[in-house]
């Protein structure tokens, strides 16, 4: 009976079929050693720098890089803290901490000791405020600045502010969009910058500034979205926003970064080795190689258009839009301790929330 014979053949073929899958499955298992990286969202997102950088490093080290994103830089610390509490370190490298978060992160970071990544000497000196032995590798940086919509300025007959104090002039009333320092890194950077500039008088400045801002957005994205909707002609952002617009069709220079006479604060993004998961010398070597790779000319050249930040290493070729960015006279590299940030936010809250009079 051919039909039954066919069925028997089919049945006997089933185990063979599954046996044949074993080598295929085995071939699918990635046996390469692994480097685990904690980083922020936009690094690994589509179009972010991770998509360019990580495959190149995987090729170089013959290893697999597993990038685990944890929201923002601040959430990276929460992740390190939780790993520490659970006594279950996962990553070997963390990427995306900035100078404001460093004080909090330090206890979870492996200090470098005598070791220095190859190419470390090429990093811009103004980015090296954190001593190298602590283990912070400046990876890229951004210069905070007011972005102006020149078209809107013309419509409202406003002149570009030249110094920070100009923001208090009557013409700027409800014409500035800022970020809330309690919820946003650029917002906190603006607050610390004003503190550096005005010193003891900072709270007078902020009390007066209450009438000037249109809103304190919860984050940079919300603030910038309002700015692009022409809600106000000025927004606190990065100088590289100008480069972004230039690269995306702004031929007439409608969106421009405004620099103040006092100078501009910067945000330094860094990478570091994570304590607790580097006992294997091979794993340590891979992690160190990754740090060195981050400051290589190859990677630094990719950052401008993928991360919209500036390279931390000298002599890296930049696109024309970046070369056209205004150069600040002075950079504020503000480094704070966690307790200090708490105190500043508390004082800010008092100055702004508890001040008398309506906006």
């Amino acid at each position, binding site marked *: 009976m051919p039909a039954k014979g066919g069925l028997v053949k089919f049945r006997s073929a089933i185990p063979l079929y599954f046996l044949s899958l074993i080598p295929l499955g085995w071939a699918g298992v990635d046996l390469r050693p692994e480097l685990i990286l*904690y980083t922020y*969202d*936009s690094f*690994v*997102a*589509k*179009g972010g720098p991770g998509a360019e950088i990580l495959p190149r490093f995987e090729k170089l080290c013959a290893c697999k890089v597993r*990038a*685990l*994103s*944890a*929201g*923002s830089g*601040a959430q990276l*610390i*929460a*992740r390190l*803290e*939780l790993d520490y*509490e*659970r006594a279950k370190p*996962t990553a070997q490298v963390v990427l995306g901490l900035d100078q*404001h978060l460093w004080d*909090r992160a330090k206890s979870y970071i492996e200090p470098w000791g005598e070791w220095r990544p190859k190419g470390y000497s090429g990093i811009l000196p103004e980015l090296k405020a954190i001593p190298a032995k602590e283990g912070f590798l400046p990876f890229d940086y951004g210069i905070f600045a007011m972005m102006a919509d020149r078209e809107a300025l013309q419509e409202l007959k406003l002149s570009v502010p030249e110094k920070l104090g100009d923001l208090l002039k009557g013409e700027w009333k*409800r014409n500035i969009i*800022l970020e*809330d320092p*309690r*919820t946003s890194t650029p917002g906190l950077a603006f607050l610390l910058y004003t503190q550096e500039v005005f010193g003891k008088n900072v709270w007078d400045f902020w009390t007066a500034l*209450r009438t000037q*801002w*249109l*809103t*304190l*957005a*919860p*984050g940079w*994205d*919300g603030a*910038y*979205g*309002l700015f*692009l*909707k*022409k*809600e106000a002609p000025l927004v606190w952002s990065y100088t590289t926003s100008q480069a*972004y617009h230039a690269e*995306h069709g702004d031929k007439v220079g409608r969106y421009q970064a405004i620099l103040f006479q006092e100078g501009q604060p910067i945000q330094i993004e860094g990478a570091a080795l994570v304590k607790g998961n580097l006992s294997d010398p091979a794993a340590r070597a891979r992690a160190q190689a990754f740090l060195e790779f981050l400051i290589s000319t190859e990677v630094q050249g990719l950052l401008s258009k993928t991360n*919209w930040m500036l390279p931390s290493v000298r002599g890296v070729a930049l696109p024309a839009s970046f070369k056209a960015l205004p150069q600040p006279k002075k950079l504020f590299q503000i480094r704070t301790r*966690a307790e200090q*940030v*708490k105190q500043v*936010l*508390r004082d800010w*809250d*008092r100055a*702004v*929330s*508890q001040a008398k009079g309506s*906006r």
Partner: protein
Amino acid sequence: MRVPRVLGWIAFVWAMGFVAFCLGAPLGALLLRVFMSSGSHPEFVDLVGVWTVVQATVQQAFWSVFFSVGLGFPLGLWVGTQVSCGSRTGRACEILLGLPYGVPTVVAGLTGVLWLGRSGILAGLGFHSDWLYSLKAVILAHVFFNAPWIALAVAQARWRVAQDSDAQLEAARTLGASYGSRLRFVIWPSIRWPLASQSVQVFNLCTMSFALVLLLGGGPPVDTLETAIYSHMRFSSLDVGGAAVFALAELLINLVPWGLILYFRGRESHPVLILRGNKPDRFKNRGSRASQNLMSLGCIGACLVALLPYSALVWIFFKQRYFNSDFASEIFRPLVLSLGLALGASVLVTTLSIAAVMVGALTAKNHPRFQGILNLALALPSGVSVLVLGLGFWLAYGRWLDPFDGSFLAMVVLQATLFFPLSFRMLWPLAEAVQLPLLEAALTLGASPGRAFWLVEWPRWRGPILSSAAVVAGASLGEVAAVSLFYSEKLIPLPLLLTRWMAQYRFDQAQGLAFLILILSAGTIAMVKGRVS
């Protein structure tokens, strides 16, 4: 009632298990952390600062509720009086009033700017106002969100009056009672508790409003406790102690109104269980057919006003033409995940709510005090910040659950915890009107408990259960806070994709995605409610 003990116990274990695992353990872990942590010295807590934020939060929430009730109550009463419960207009009103709940906050914020902004629609028409970026804008946005919700509760309660107290209404009318008297003595007693309950729910939502307050409020003094909680977790060294103080203030603010409702309700002399027969909805036609039609149109028009702000988004969406193959391929995975999340959350919430309602119904007669405690325990999630709850989840279950590896299950559970009180409040009226005589009769005639429930109670439960599931699914599609705590690169739902696009200067596409989320969440509610009705 001879409901089998096993069924009652299963419901009890399920409901209490939820309270223990989703609330007790996370909040307990947080408290433990506060007491164990050396970094949370109480001297950091600036009581004047706490008081200022509490004042700002309560002020904002109070006015939001005040105006939401001011608009929602008469609208609900009008719809409930003029439109019959089962009619086509009644169904349409029910759907329209339920839709705003599915609107994600980020979309609500965006529409606020589109209408009231300096380059917004009203400004384009020559109406310039300084409302945006002030307390008024926050209240307005909250009112558009919540007034329909209040109106829906009132309309549904009014429909129940038409079913349960029709004879009383008729008698009052025949005896010459004015509308005011009928409202005061017949309608109001049945409407006041659903109205109070919904108002407290709205108050809770407003006190925990975060993005909307920050975006539209213009910064301090318009403030919210959530901002303070967020900043303590973000910039300070995971200052759980500081965050806990604000979280406790928030919990108290939110639970006190629930406590008051339970207290005053408990003092009422009438029994909690209302024995009612299976009377049809005998809605009386008043006036000519033409005037009836006019009233129906008026009701639908009034309900549509609540959706007016979002029409701007529709117009912009079609003007910009966002949909292309890139857009579709990029949103595909997040869309599937969001739909799965909505389904999971609504199933979990609904089963929990049914269990909780059953426990409430079973204990109402014999243990009224226990029922009060149960009600308060089940109202707890209304008062707990999602940030605090999320951190509690991390601390309690972090040993087994790596939050940063992404966890679909954790997202579902956290969302279920958030939306549970909403569903519970929607289903609770069912427990208060169990048809005991019919159930007893069915059991006496030999029907199994399951069959008796299926035949007697299920037709009444089906609608509210599916409605609550739809509302939870709609709300889940736009929810961003809970999912942002347990996502990973492979698990990115639509609202997170939206925030990510905004961070990448992709504002136009983000706007398109916001519209899609709005359509999905509101569409889910409309579709299910339409079928149910």
